[in-house]
Every structure is written in C-alpha cells, then in structure tokens.
C-alpha cells in the first residue's frame, strides 16, 4: 500500500512537471515570431547540408540511443538478481525519457551555447536557434558544419542519457527510485553539462587548442567522451557506492548474475552501438570516422582477448562474463583516443584495458570492500582514466593533425599527456565533489535507500509493483 499522503505529494510534483512540459510547446510557439523577426544570418542559408554526413550522424544517433537500451539495460539487468531485473531496466528507460527531455530544454544550451569558458549560455534553450526558423519565405534550418544543428543537438543528446544510466550499476538493487530521478536531473545539469562544455565546446577550458585552454596546459584530447562520459560517471559511481552503502547481505549471501544471456546480448549490442558513439564523433562520414570505427572495433576485440586471457591464466577457464567485461573495458578505454590514435594502437589500448580493469574489478574491489555492484568504477572509472592517459601516449598527427604538424602524443614526441592528466584530475575532482554534495543533501531530504523490507523484496515489486518473469 502506498501511503496516500506521499502519493499525493508525488502527484503534485508530477502534475507540475506535466504542466511545464505541456507549456513548452506553447512557449516554443510564442517565441517563433521573435525568431522570425530576427532575420536569419545569410551564413545560415548558405551552408549546405551534406546528405552523407547527415545520414551517418542520424544513424549514429540511433546507435547511441540503442546503447542505453536495449544495450546497457540488458547488460546490467542480467547482472542483478532476478528480483531487481525490472528495477534496472526501469531506471534505464526512465532516464531515456528524463535526460532526453532535459537535453532539449536546457542541456544542449548549457553545453554548447555561446562562448563562455566555463558554461554555455541560454542561446539554445528550448531548442531556440536549433530547430527551424521562418525566413519570411520558407523554413531555415540552422546548420553546424555539414549537418543541421538539430542533428548536432541530437547526437550528443543521446550521449547525455548514457552516464546516468551507467551509474545505475553502482547503486543497483537499493536506491530509491524517486531520489534517483532528482539526483540525475541535478547531476546531468551540474556535472555533465559543464564538463561537456569544457571539453567539446571550442571555448571550453579543456578544449584542445581552444581560446580558453591556456589554464589547462592547452586543453586535452577527448574524441568521444573518455572524460565527459566515462570518467565522470565511473568516479561518481564510486562515490555513490560508498555513500549509499552496500547491498544487504553483500559478502555473505551469494548474489550471482541472474541471467548472463542478457548480459552477453547487451554487451554485444554495446559493441555495435559504440560504433555510432566513437565514429559518429567525427561528425562527418569521412575517413577519420572510418579510422575511429576501426580503432573502436579492434579495442573491443583486444579487450575480449585480454580479459578472457587473464581469467584463463588466473582461474583456468575464461568466462562469458569476462569476455563481455573485456569488450566493454576495451570500448571505454579507446573512447577518448578513437579519433586520435591508429587502429593498431587501439589493439594495445584495448588489451591494456582488459588487463587493468580485470584487476580493478577483482583485486582492487575486494581489497577495499566497496559494493560498486556492477563495477561501474572498475570498468568506466578505471578504463576511462586509463584511456585518457593512453590517448596522451598514442595520439598521433598521422591520424588527426590537431597540432598543425607538430607531434601530439608521447610516443611521437608530443606533449599532450600533461593536459590529459590535468583533464583527468579536473574531471575526478568535479565528479567527486558535486556527487558527494548532491548525495548528502538528498540523503538528508529524500533519503537515498529503500527500506530493508523493500530491498529484500526486490526493487521490481517494491518500487514498481511488477514481476520480471512469471513462468508458472
């Protein structure tokens, strides 16, 4: 039974949100005249859209959404116990809705609007200046590079969904759903959007060679989100695991994955989707996209071999969970360097990720005893950090001539490694501090965990009133 008072409170919040949503269209509408009045810059009208680039970026956007669900939803839900399978899936699906809408409302604008060093501005709020405008004689679609700005909004909008969904693995099977929702709204706004702006907006403080990157040794290389996506979520996940605490019975009760077939299906979907993630980050269907695609593929493949190999060595047999963990580790680790390193280097990077993340998920975790339930830190935190560093080692002008002919990575005599370390440290710091503060506040106000009885019953029933499988 739901306590009516609480339902009512939640109800009011929900109605408020709905009302706001319903109001947006009207607002969007109301603003159009203003937009129409402001004559579109001729530049807008002249930039042509390349249909091949747009086709590739739309395809990539679809692939990246597929990573969160069914990809990650299956990967994660197979790893929990049966009674929490829907809890995990629900968090993924709900976050697709939540972060999807937030990105359009303010996320894209905070990340890519204007030219501030620390944060975007309000230029693109409510998709203003992103969606179509009236030129007086016909629609004008703002353009960014060779693609519509709408595509440029969509692609990273799919990214925005992933890190919150990744963090779900750290507090699986015990966090209160309502608190999770509020936390993710704040985390996305206060951790993701700033980081995204710093690293990927040309005015950000971490943008390689950017105007404001002097403070960070010239800015770092992050092709597809090693810092923005994986370090940020992996480190925040560790903070979550520590502050929310272990699952009841952790260490004493067995908590084996209830359905490794889901995990294997999800992992291989992640592999496929990651092509959109990394190769799409070229923002064009060019040769660099092909190079990033190849690097992604080879890192995943090497990750499979490395992690399986480590298991074969240390315990005598490789496991499907090991192979799947290895491929994800390889993918995470190549993400920042995918468009800066040679595909052959990606083999080494993927293999290194397989070995390092294997140790992080086994030795490190059992040493410190935190319950990072699905190893978000071990794979994304460690793999992302390793990837940021190895990008500094293997990045080469041969693939991406970012330094105007000068060497880039350590191996070819370049110096970007320093900035990589700085960017990593900044990302760690931001993620730790903001996540810590948010969780402390939420703990004091809403409460982080479900009750013991609810946890024992499982999140499926206690949080959502449903059962995953009814096979009787």
């Amino acid at each position, binding site marked *: 039974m739901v306590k009516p008072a609480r339902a009512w409170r939640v109800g009011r919040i929900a109605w408020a949100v709905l009302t706001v949503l319903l109001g947006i269209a009207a607002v969007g509408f109301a603003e159009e005249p203003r937009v129409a009045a402001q004559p579109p810059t001729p530049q807008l009208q002249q930039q042509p859209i390349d249909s091949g680039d747009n086709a590739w970026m739309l395809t990539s956007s679809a692939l990246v959404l597929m990573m969160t669900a069914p990809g990650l939803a299956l990967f994660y839900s197979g790893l929990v116990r049966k009674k929490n399978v829907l809890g995990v899936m629900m968090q993924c699906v709900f976050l697709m809705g939540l972060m999807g809408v937030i990105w359009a409302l303010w996320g894209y604008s905070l990340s890519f609007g204007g030219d501030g060093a620390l944060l975007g501005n309000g230029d693109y709020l409510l998709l203003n200046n992103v969606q179509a405008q009236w030129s007086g004689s016909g629609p004008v679609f703002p353009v960014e590079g060779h693609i519509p700005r709408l595509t440029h909004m969509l692609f990273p909008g799919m990214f925005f969904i992933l890190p919150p969904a990744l963090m779900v693995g750290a507090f699986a099977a015990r966090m209160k759903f309502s608190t999770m929702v509020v936390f993710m709204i704040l985390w996305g706004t206060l951790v993701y959007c700033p980081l995204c702006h710093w690293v990927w907006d040309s005015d950000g403080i971490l943008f390689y060679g950017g105007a404001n990157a002097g403070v960070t040794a010239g800015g770092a290389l992050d092709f597809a989100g090693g810092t923005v996506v994986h370090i940020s979520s992996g480190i925040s996940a560790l903070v979550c695991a520590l502050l929310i605490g272990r699952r009841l*019975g952790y260490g004493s*009760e*067995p908590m084996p994955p209830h359905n490794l077939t889901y995990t294997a299906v999800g992992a291989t979907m992640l592999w496929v989707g990651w092509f959109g993630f990394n190769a799409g980050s070229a923002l064009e269907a060019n040769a660099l996209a092909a190079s990033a695609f190849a690097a992604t593929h080879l890192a995943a493949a090497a990750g499979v071999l490395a992690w399986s190999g480590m298991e074969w060595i240390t315990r005598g047999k490789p496991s499907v969970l090991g192979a799947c963990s290895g491929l994800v580790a390889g993918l995470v680790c190549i993400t920042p360097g995918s468009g800066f390193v040679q595909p052959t280097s990606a083999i080494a990077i993927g293999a290194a990720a397989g070995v390092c993340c294997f140790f992080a998920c086994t030795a490190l975790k059992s040493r410190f005893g935190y319950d990072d339930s699905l190893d978000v830190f071990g794979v994304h935190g460690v793999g992302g950090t390793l990837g940021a560093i190895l990008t500094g080692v293997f990045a080469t002008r041969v693939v991406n001539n970012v330094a105007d002919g000068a060497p880039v990575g350590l191996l070819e005599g370049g110096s970007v490694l320093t900035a990589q370390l700085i960017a990593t440290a900044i990302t760690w710091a931001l993620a730790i501090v903001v996540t810590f503060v948010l969780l402390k506040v939420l703990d004091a106000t809403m409460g982080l965990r479900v009750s013991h009885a609810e946890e*024992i019953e499982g999140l499926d029933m206690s949080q959502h*009133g449903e059962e995953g499988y009814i096979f009787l």
Partner: protein
Amino acid sequence: MRKVEAIIRHFKLEEVKNALAEQGVHGMTITEVKGFGRQKGHTEMYRGTEYQVDFVPKIKLEVVVAEGEVQRVLDTILRAAQTGQVGDGKVFVSELTEVVRIRTGELGRDAL
C-alpha cells in the same frame, strides 16, 4: 525414520542449511514452492489491471533423519528460520516405512 518437511522463507535457506550442517545433518532436499497463509501476498498492476497475488514464494526443505534426531532438527530449524514476522512457515513431521540409498542399496539409517 522420519521426514521433517519445513516451509521456510527464501532468504533463510542459507542460514538453515548451515545450522543443520553444523548439527551433523548429512543431506537435505529443497523445492521451490508457493504458499498461502496468514502472510498476505501483494498486488501487481499492469496497465490499469490489478492482480492480487496470494501465493508467496517459499522454500520447502526436506530432511530425513532417524526418529531420535527429530527434536534436534526441529529446534535447529526453528531457531534458524525464525524472524518473528507472519509468514515464517511451518514444519511437518511424518513417518517413513523405508529409506534406501540408490547407489548402494543400503537401508534405513545407513542410507543417510
């Protein structure tokens, strides 16, 4: 020989098993069952339709022991399986006329 049949909570299985093992009980057999009793089930909702699920998942544990050990086994189970909340379950004891070990054909106490 006696068969002690206990209906217990899922998450108590590990504890009960260990307690019995400590008491030197050599073997047991468990089955997934669903129970109906004082403990209420729950309501599931699927697109507006509510289902009252009356049956609660339980574990049935069967231990065959010699008559003299029944009390010890009963006590052990009661101790380990109790939470004090409605739904802790029941123990039923019945008599067996014969016990055989398939591997060897041994009978009675030797079969356990």
